[in-house]
């Protein structure tokens, strides 16, 4: 089974020699279909850089990034943009909806940018909104929605058109615990349905929704947990 996302020895250096900052120092990491991977680390550990590189918004200084077998480094800007329209979905902490567009139009955005006929894009958007449980908000503008609703729209936008890689950057950061949990449940469901997800967070409680947790410290992966043996840990002895 091939990874949907594969990072190999990714190094990212910001700035020039005397003031350079090493955001990532040789990170290798993969996310497979049907799997949600959490990347945990404190501020400055390079989590967000990892995500922008995985989405082709940023280029590694060295190392390789492949998405669905395609090496992003080999692609030009336009092709990388096309990958984001068709293969990679982004969910941000700040929701990042366009306030001038309705919920449905925000969701349809990647499709429309891809040249899909507006009517069809709209239909796909409605379906995606249905999946995240807010079909009735399709014609609302972001300013008229709660934070949780906005983030649901953002998730709908990230999954519309069956994109296979979902990158989420602290998607629950601005939400209360229960709403945040619902958002994670949606992400989880999407991954259970076959997508690969990467969730960047600094909160253990959210990372726990993942199948694997990757610990990032100072731009390197220091540890990784997979989870097995469910019930054993509920023994009080574990405490």
């Amino acid at each position, binding site marked *: 089974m091939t990874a949907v996302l594969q990072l190999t020895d990714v190094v990212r250096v910001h700035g020039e020699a005397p003031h350079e900052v090493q955001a990532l120092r040789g990170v290798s990491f993969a996310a497979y279909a049907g799997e949600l991977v959490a990347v945990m680390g404190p501020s400055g550990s390079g989590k967000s850089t990892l995500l922008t590189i995985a989405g082709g918004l940023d280029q590694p200084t060295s190392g390789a990034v492949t998405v669905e077998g395609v090496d992003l480094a080999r692609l030009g*800007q336009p092709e990388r943009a096309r990958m984001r329209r068709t293969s990679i979905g982004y969910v941000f902490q700040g929701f990042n909806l*366009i*306030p001038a567009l309705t919920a449905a139009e925000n969701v349809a955005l990647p499709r429309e940018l891809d040249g899909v006929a507006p009517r069809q894009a709209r239909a796909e958007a409605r379906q995606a909104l249905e999946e995240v449980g807010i079909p009735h908000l399709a014609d609302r503008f972001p300013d008229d929605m709660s934070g949780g609703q906005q983030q649901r729209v953002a998730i709908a936008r990230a999954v519309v058109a069956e994109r296979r890689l979902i990158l989420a950057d602290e998607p629950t950061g601005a939400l209360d615990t229960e709403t945040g949990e619902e958002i994670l449940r949606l992400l989880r469901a999407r991954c259970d349905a076959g997508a690969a997800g990467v969730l960047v967070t600094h909160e253990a409680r959210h990372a726990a929704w993942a199948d694997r947790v990757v610990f990032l410290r100072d731009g390197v992966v220091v540890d990784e947990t997979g989870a097995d043996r469910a019930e054993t840990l509920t023994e009080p002895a574990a405490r």
Partner: protein
Amino acid sequence: MSGGTTSSRLGGWRVALRLARREAWRRKAQTALMLLLICLPVMAVSAATVVWRTSDVSSAESVTRRMGAAAAVLTPQQTRDVAQKFDPDDGTAWGAENEPPATEAEIRTVLGDRPLLPVRRDSADYRTTHGIAGTNLLVADLRQPLAAGLFRLDDGRFPRSVDEVVVNQAVADRGPGLGDTLVLERRAPDGTKVPIELRVVGVGDYADSRTRAWAAVLPGALGEPTADDGPPQLLVGGGPVTWSDVRALNALGVIVASRQVLTDPPPESALAPDMRGGDEGDDTALTVLGLVVAMVLLEVVLLAGPAFAVRARAQAHTLALVAASGGTPAQARRTVLASGVVVGLVGGVLGVGLGIAGSTLAVPIAQRLDAAWFGPFEVPWALVALVAGFGFLSALLAAVVPAFAASRQDVVAVLAGRRGEGRPSRRSPVVGLVLIGLGVAGSVAGSRPGGGSSALLVGGSAIVSVVGMIFLVPVVVAAVARLAARLPLPLRFAARDAARHRMRTVPAIAAVGATVAGVIALGIAVTSQAASDEQGYSPMLPIGNGAVSLPTDATPGQVDEVEEILRKGLPDAPRERVTGVVMDGADHSLDIGLAHGDQRVMTSYWGILGTSFLVADELPGYLGTRPDDRAAADRVLADGGIVVLRNRSEKALPADRLTVEVGEVPFEGGEIAHLRHADLPAAAARVPERSSPVAAVLSPEAAALLRLPTATTAIAVRPTIEKGALKNVNEQLAASTANVELQVERGYQPEAATRIIKIVLAVLGGILMLGGTLTATFLALSDARPDFATMAAVGARPRTRRGVAASYALVVGLVGALLGAPIGFIPGVAISRPLTYDDVTSSTLLAIPWPLLGAVVVGLPLLTALIVGLAARSRLPLVARLD
């Protein structure tokens, strides 16, 4: 107590101003844009003011060019009773005429024993390299110290003898230069030309005029002055000539321009009672100026408005925090207004400074375009300060609306990070429609054709309509946003974003609308007037044909000479001698009338064929008659009859036989003497124009029967006549003994000014529109940065940004143009009515400049969008932050 209040108020302003200053420094690009928008108009107007004041020569500045080094210049009149203002050029009055002018002796009784230098101004023809041209002549001894400054020598010396002359550059350029011979041609009293040969001993500048031809000779060079020439002007030497001296000389019938009085005029009360007043500025002119200033102010405010709105929005979060911690609305308002104060002050001062600097470059250019020499470089500080104040005011006004909006903003929404504005007010469109209604009513009232029209009312109504339009913009923008649901993404985004940020889009759209309204209004006025002129145009010959009208006393030799020049100069154009009735005799003119019984047949003509009645045995082709009338006309001419030409508005002939009556009108006045008459077969030949070149064509038999004197009155030339060839031929014709001219009918030629005005309108409109659109688009793009980042994250192509930029420009331009165009019709139609009023038919004419309209309403917005789209950066901001 009040002192405390004042100081606390000042304190509030101090904080606001400090915030504004910091904000201006922090957002440099935005501040630069704001400064540019305020600075440019201030700069242009202050530069224009300086150029105007420099080119304008005041009484005091004109002293040297008028009187050289003298204390005064005296102009004795042929009367003994004159009154004058301090500067006689501003006004003089005199009583009885034909009295002997004051003598030098009489003048000396007033002024005492002073040097007096006679000066005359005259004119003459001179031979140029190509032919003949006219020149002005200064007849004075320029070597005298009193005359110093009247003529500045660049090269050579002043004349020492009567056969010497100095010329200015304008003469030297077209004819003889230094050391050559200048041949003047004076017409002797008997009408013959007398050549006077003069040696050019100097070249220089005449003090008053730069481009007109001037030459200076000693008195006597042109022969002795005749009684008709009147007394010469006198330059007066010695001490100052006081105002009481001037009054005393006025009593002798001498008009005086005194150096002392011009440079330091006495109080108004010193003037003779009937010379006072009457010089106040025209109220109407002042009000029109006020209207223009209001219009420009409105435009500047609208153009600068978006930048201030965006600045205020950028401060919204700060202001919301201030409000949350107990700030008053007044403090919020002040903080935003302070931006206007800072930008207005800096922009005003900077604009004036740049304007004055620019005017030093503009003055020499303007001088080259002006015939008169400019006065000394002059900065009218009071006016310039007013202009700077105008810049300050426009910045302040541009900040007013955002300031009030800021003081009323929804603190919660701002702190929650919502970026949009609420729904547009429901009241504003009503106010807008009412204002537009008022504008229409005012325009109708102000444009009653044929008197009763008031430019003021129309101008005022135009401003009211434009203001009304501004109130309509928000709802229109909101409506466009609603309609945009089905548009492609960039357009939809642009329309929605425009509606969400009305504070910045409304003024931009209104600026475009006001510009378009102005362009359309003036375009309609100019086009309507041109159409009216065209409709009223009467050709003198069929279009393309030409004719040389010959003098009545032309000798056969002269006719041959003219024909020879035409043959050589225009070998491809067929010529025809025109035989016509010689209407003017030595002491009388002929009167030829047509009648049918008691009913007179009125005829008219408008032509250059040297006669109103042609004599020919068949209808000449150069009359432009309708071909289907030719057969009948030729038949009548063959029968010895008369063919009467009927223009578009003349009635048909009452019968096919007419009585032709010939009479004589003595030049000295008196009754028409009837000589003879004849009953002749007649036919009409119609001319499909407003006028016919002659009244009628007589058959040779008829002319003989009525014993009418005939001659070659003109030579008709058929097309094609080239412009270049025409110029050559005309120079030769002017030099021929007959001194005639070939005139060519080219049909209605719209005045060059009309076309230039239209081009200027389109260009100016384009610039203002581009300005309004660009500022709004620039601000929108920088505001939409987060949205672009989002689009990039979901995979937008880089060119999406271009698409959005172009769409934004299109929305602003198109909505503005579509709103502005109908508004422009209000004053446009109003101005065109009095302009095109036809007294005869008491009708008016309305011509819509469709190409201009199309260009401005559709073409310019599309072009602007294209330019913006091509110029916009196509890089999307990518999320790249250090965490």
